[in-house]
C-alpha cells in the first residue's frame, strides 16, 4: 500500500544565504597578510615620510621653531608648522566634518596657540621613515606656557547645558511628575555617584595615510585610515579647495576604529598638506602615544536617585551627568536618556551638563553615551532592587515598559523580555542565592550579576551600485566601511540572495569615494542603511533582468509581474511555478548586453520615526570570582542575550557581540587614561600601561540572539549589533562583584585597590 508523503515545506535554496553563518570573503586576505591597510600601499614614484611632532605642554604659545637646524640634515625635505602653512579655508564650517560637534574645530598647524597637550605642532618630511623620525627628535621648539586646568571637578562650577546640534544627540528627556516629593515619600530609595575617566579607543592600526601623488595636476590617491572615506573627502576638499577627482579617498581595510575614525584625523590633513606643497607622494603614520591625542570617551560623573514602593515599582528616577569637553568644541553624547527609555517611572528628572577643560575634544567611542549611561543606571537599578528586597531580574521585569516613556511612542519592536528569559535560563540565574557573599568556589567568592541595555536603531542615507556582468558575476559598490564589523560579508550575502546568485559570484567593494556615497561606519547603522541600499540596487537590476527575460523568444516569464518572480540558484523564475525559469546568464546572453547596472538608495523613514521608538536591546548575565584578600576579580562566565532585529550573519554578528563583551570587561576592570593635572597630560600613553584585556582575561562568553525582525526600523529587518553587545556589561560586573563581596564600587575601572 502506498502513501503520499507531503513535500517538506521548506527546502532552503543554496543562494538563500542571509541568516547563514558564512565566513568573511575577505578572510583569506586578512589571514595571509595580503589585505592592505592605509600605510601599506605602494605609490608610483619614490615615497617620502612625515613624522609628527607633538606639543609637550597643555596650553600656551609656540614662540620659536628652529626648523633650519633640521632642514640642514641631508635627506630632510621640509618642516611644516604654523609658520609655513599656506592660506587655507577661512571659516570654521569648512573644517566641520559630518559628525563634528558644536564649536570651532581644531585646525592642525593653523596658529602658534597650544590648546591641548600632544597637539600636533610640526611635521618633518624626509626621504626615509627613520630619518624623519630622527629629524623630528632634534627639532627644537620654544613655548610660552599659560595656566591651564585639566581637572573636571575643578571646572564643575562652570558647567553649562549641553547644546543641541550634533548628529544623533538627544537632549535630556523632559521631567515628569514631582521627582523630589516622590523620592522623599518612597519607602525604599538609593542614590549614588558613578564615575569613569577618559578612555581611549586605541584601535590596533595606528592612524596613517599614504598619498600617491599621481603627477597629474593635484590628483592624489589618498589611502587613509578612517571609518568613512566620504567624510574625509568632504573635509579635505573644503579645506584645501580640491575637487573630488583630485582627492580620491581609499580605505579598503580599516584596522579598527571604535569611533576614533569617525572624524578625519590630523595625520590625513598633514599628509595632504605635505603632498600638495611638495608635489610628492608621502606617508604619515601616528605613533602609539599620539593615538592618545585624538579624542577619547569623556570623563563623566553621573548622579542617580531612585525610589521604589514596597512591591518594587519605581516611583522616582533622576539621572544627571557632567562630562568634560574641550575649550573649543562641545562634544555631546546621549548619556541620561537611556534610563528614561528603559524604565517607566511616574516621577523623573534628567540633566546633562558639560564643562570645559584644557584637553582635546572628546570623541564618540564604541556605544558612546550608552556605555556611560548604562553603567550608571544598571548599577543603580541593582542597588534599588536590593533596597526593595526584589531579585534584580524580577525588578527589571516589574518595571518593564512596552512603550518609550521619554517620547510616549511604542517601540517598533522590543524583545528585551525574551533576552531576560533566555539569558537567565542559559546562565542558570534561578540557582542564584541573593544574599551578598553567599556563593563560593573554594577560597574564591562568587558573584552573579546582571544588567541590560538599549541602543537606537537608526537608518542613514546610503547608496550603492550593482553591476551584473554577462558571465553572471555581480559587482556591488558602496563607499561604506568595514572596520571589522562584517560589512564585506553581509553586503555580499544581501546582494547574492537578492539576485539568487552564489556568493562566489558576488564581489562587494567598499572604501572608495569613487563609489556611491555611504555614511561613516558608526552608530550600528551600516547593516540597516547600506544593506537596504544594496538590496534596492540589486532589486533594480532584477527588474531590468525580468524585462529582458520577457523580451526573450518563447520566454516562460511573459506577463509575470516583478512581485511574482524569485531569484534563486542563478535563475529567475515564477513563484507560482518554479519550472517557469530562465538562467540569469541566458537572459544576458539573449539580450546581448555586456552588463546591467542599477543604483539603490536608502534613508530614514520619516513616518516611522514619528510613530515609533526604535531600539535594539540586550540583557547580560555575568559570573565573577573574587579573591577577597588580594582584590582580584575574574570574569569567568558571561551570557549576553541580544535582540537586534534580523541577524544577517550569526557568525560575524556573534563576533560583534563577543567584542562588545570584551569591551565591557575592559571598561569595568581596566581602562583609564591617567591624567596628570600638574602636567595637563595623559601619562600612560602606551599599550603597556593603558590596559586592555589580553587573551588570558577572557573566559567563557555565550551569545544569544533572540528571534526578532523589525521591518519598521529598517527595510531589511535589521537593527544593528555594533554597540548593543557592550551595554550593561560593566554594570553587570560591578553588580556581580557586589553580590560576591557586599562591596559596591561606583568608580571605574574596578581595580585591585578598590576591593582591598
Amino acid at each position, binding site marked *: 500500500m502506498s502513501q503520499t508523503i507531503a513535500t517538506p515545506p521548506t527546502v532552503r535554496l543554496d543562494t538563500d544565504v542571509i541568516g547563514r553563518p558564512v565566513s568573511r570573503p575577505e578572510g583569506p586576505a586578512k589571514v595571509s597578510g595580503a589585505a592592505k591597510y592605509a600605510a601599506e600601499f605602494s605609490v608610483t614614484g619614490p615615497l617620502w615620510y612625515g613624522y609628527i611632532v607633538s606639543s609637550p605642554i597643555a596650553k600656551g604659545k609656540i614662540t620659536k621653531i628652529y626648523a633650519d637646524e633640521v632642514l640642514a640634515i641631508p635627506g630632510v625635505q621640509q618642516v611644516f608648522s604654523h609658520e609655513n602653512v599656506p592660506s587655507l579655508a577661512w571659516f570654521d564650517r569648512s573644517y566641520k566634518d559630518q559628525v563634528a560637534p558644536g564649536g570651532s574645530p581644531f585646525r592642525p598647524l593653523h596658529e602658534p596657540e597650544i590648546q591641548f597637550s600632544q597637539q600636533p605642532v610640526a611635521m618633518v618630511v624626509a626621504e626615509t621613515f627613520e630619518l624623519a623620525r630622527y629629524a623630528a627628535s632634534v627639532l627644537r621648539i620654544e613655548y610660552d606656557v599659560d595656566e591651564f586646568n585639566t581637572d573636571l571637578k575643578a571646572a564643575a562650577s562652570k558647567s553649562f547645558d549641553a547644546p543641541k546640534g550634533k548628529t544623533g544627540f538627544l537632549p535630556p528627556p523632559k521631567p515628569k511628575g514631582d521627582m523630589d516629593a516622590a523620592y522623599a515619600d518612597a519607602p525604599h530609595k538609593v542614590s549614588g555617584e558613578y564615575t569613569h575617566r577618559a578612555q581611549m579607543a586605541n584601535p590596533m592600526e595606528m592612524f596613517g595615510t599614504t598619498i600617491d601623488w599621481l603627477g597629474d595636476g593635484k590628483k592624489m590617491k589618498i589611502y587613509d585610515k578612517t571609518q568613512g572615506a566620504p567624510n574625509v573627502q568632504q573635509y579635505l576638499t573644503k579645506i584645501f579647495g580640491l575637487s573630488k577627482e583630485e582627492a580620491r579617498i581609499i580605505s579598503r581595510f580599516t584596522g579598527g576604529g571604535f569611533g576614533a575614525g569617525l572624524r578625519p584625523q590630523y595625520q590625513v590633513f598633514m599628509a595632504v598638506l605635505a603632498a600638495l606643497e611638495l608635489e610628492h607622494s608621502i606617508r604619515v603614520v601616528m605613533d602609539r602615544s599620539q593615538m592618545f591625542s585624538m579624542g577619547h570617551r569623556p570623563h563623566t560623573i553621573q548622579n542617580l536617585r531612585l525610589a521604589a514602593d514596597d512591591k518594587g515599582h519605581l516611583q522616582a528616577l533622576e539621572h544627571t551627568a557632567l562630562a568634560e569637553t574641550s575649550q573649543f568644541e562641545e562634544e555631546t553624547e546621549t548619556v541620561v536618556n537611556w534610563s528614561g527609555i528603559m524604565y517607566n517611572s511616574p516621577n523623573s528628572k534628567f540633566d546633562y551638563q558639560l564643562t570645559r577643560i584644557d584637553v582635546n575634544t572628546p570623541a564618540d567611542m564604541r556605544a558612546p553615551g550608552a556605555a556611560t549611561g548604562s553603567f550608571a543606571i544598571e548599577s543603580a537599578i541593582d542597588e534599588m532592587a536590593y533596597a526593595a528586597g526584589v531579585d534584580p531580574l524580577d525588578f527589571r521585569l516589574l518595571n518593564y515598559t512596552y512603550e518609550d516613556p521619554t517620547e510616549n511612542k511604542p517601540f517598533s519592536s522590543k524583545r528585551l523580555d525574551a533576552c531576560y528569559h533566555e539569558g537567565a535560563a542559559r546562565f542558570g540565574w534561578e540557582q542564584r542565592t541573593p544574599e551578598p557573599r553567599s556563593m563560593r568556589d573554594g577560597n574564591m567568592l562568587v558573584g552573579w550579576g546582571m544588567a541590560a541595555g538599549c541602543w537606537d536603531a537608526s537608518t542613514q542615507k546610503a547608496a550603492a551600485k550593482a553591476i551584473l556582468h554577462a558571465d553572471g558575476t555581480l559587482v556591488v559598490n558602496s563607499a561604506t566601511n568595514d572596520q571589522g564589523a562584517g560589512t564585506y560579508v553581509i553586503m555580499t550575502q544581501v546582494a547574492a540572495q537578492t539576485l539568487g546568485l552564489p556568493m562566489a559570484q558576488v564581489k562587494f567593494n567598499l572604501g572608495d569615494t569613487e563609489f556611491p556615497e555611504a555614511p561613516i561606519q558608526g552608530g550600528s547603522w551600516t547593516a540597516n542603511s547600506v544593506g537596504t541600499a544594496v538590496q534596492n540596487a540589486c532589486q533594480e537590476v532584477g527588474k531590468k533582468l525580468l524585462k529582458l527575460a520577457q523580451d526573450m523568444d518563447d520566454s516562460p516569464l511573459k506577463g509575470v509581474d516583478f512581485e511574482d518572480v524569485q531569484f534563486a540558484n542563478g535563475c529567475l523564475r515564477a513563484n507560482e511555478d518554479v519550472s517557469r525559469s530562465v538562467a540569469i546568464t541566458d537572459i544576458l546572453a539573449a539580450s546581448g548586453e555586456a552588463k546591467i547596472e542599477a543604483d539603490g538608495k536608502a534613508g530614514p523613514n520619516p513616518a516611522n520615526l514619528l510613530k515609533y521608538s526604535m531600539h535594539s536591546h540586550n540583557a547580560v548575565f555575568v559570573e565573577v570570582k573574587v579573591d577577597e584578600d588580594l582584590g582580584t576579580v575574574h570574569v569567568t562566565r558571561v551570557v549576553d542575550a541580544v535582540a537586534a532585529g534580523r541577524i544577517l550573519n550569526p557568525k560575524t554578528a556573534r563576533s560583534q557581540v563577543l567584542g562588545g563583551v570584551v569591551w565591557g570587561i575592559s571598561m569595568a576592570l581596566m581602562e583609564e587614561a591617567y591624567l596628570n593635572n600638574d602636567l595637563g597630560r595623559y601619562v600612560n600613553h602606551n599599550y603597556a600601561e593603558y590596559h586592555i*584585556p589580553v587573551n588570558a582575561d577572557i573566559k567563557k562568553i555565550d551569545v544569544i540572539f533572540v528571534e526578532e525582525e523589525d521591518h519598521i526600523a529598517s527595510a531589511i529587518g535589521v537593527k544593528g549589533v555594533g554597540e548593543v553587545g557592550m551595554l550593561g556589561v560593566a554594570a553587570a560586573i560591578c553588580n556581580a562583584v557586589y553580590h560576591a563581596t557586599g562591596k559596591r564600587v561606583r568608580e571605574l575601572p574596578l581595580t585591585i585597590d578598590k576591593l582591598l
Partner: protein
Amino acid sequence: MSLHFTQEALDKTPPTIVPTQPVTLNVNGEDHTIQIAPWTSLLDALREYMDLTGTKKGCDHGQCGACTVLVDGKRINSCLALATVYQGKQIQTIEGLGSEDNLSPLQQAFVDHDAFQCGYCTPGQICSAQGLINEGRCKTEDEVREHLSGNLCRCGAYTNILSAVMEVLHDGQVVVDNGTLVTIPAQPSASSSVN
C-alpha cells in the same frame, strides 16, 4: 604669568647620519638584499623596504604583538629587532605561512572560526600561534590563553582565536599521549644540557 618651555633637541652633538649598507635577510626562504642603516628595525625592513606588509605595526614598542614573526621557528617582536643583526637567520612572516589561495591550517582555522574582525592583529596572532605550536608546551585552553597573551586584539576576538588555535593544536600537530606531549621536534635551543 607664563613659563617658558623648550622642547630641546635630544643630542648635544650635531647630527651625523650613519650611511646605509647592503643587508641580506632570508625571509620565507628567499634572500632579500636591501640598503639600510643599523637603525632600521626588522619590522620596518619588512614593511618599508621589502613590501612585506603582512607583518603589522601596532605600537612599535613590543607592547602589542602585531609585528610577531618567526625567527628560526621562534616567535619574536620584529619591532624591537634591528634588522642588521638578523642576517643569517631564517625569518618567517605571515606571507610565508600560506597565501590567499593556499592557506595554512592555522590561517584556515582563523577564517572558519571568525577569529578576527578588523584583521590588523591577525597576522601577529597567527605567527604567535604558530610559534606556540612549534614550542610544543601548551595543550589546555588556559595554557593557550596565557601563551597567546602577547598579542592584543582590540576587537576582542579572543574567544574565537582560542577556538581556532585549539582546533589546529589537536589536529595531528600535537599529540597528547599519557598526559605528556608528543610533539613536532623542538627547534634548536641556545641552551646546552648540563655537563
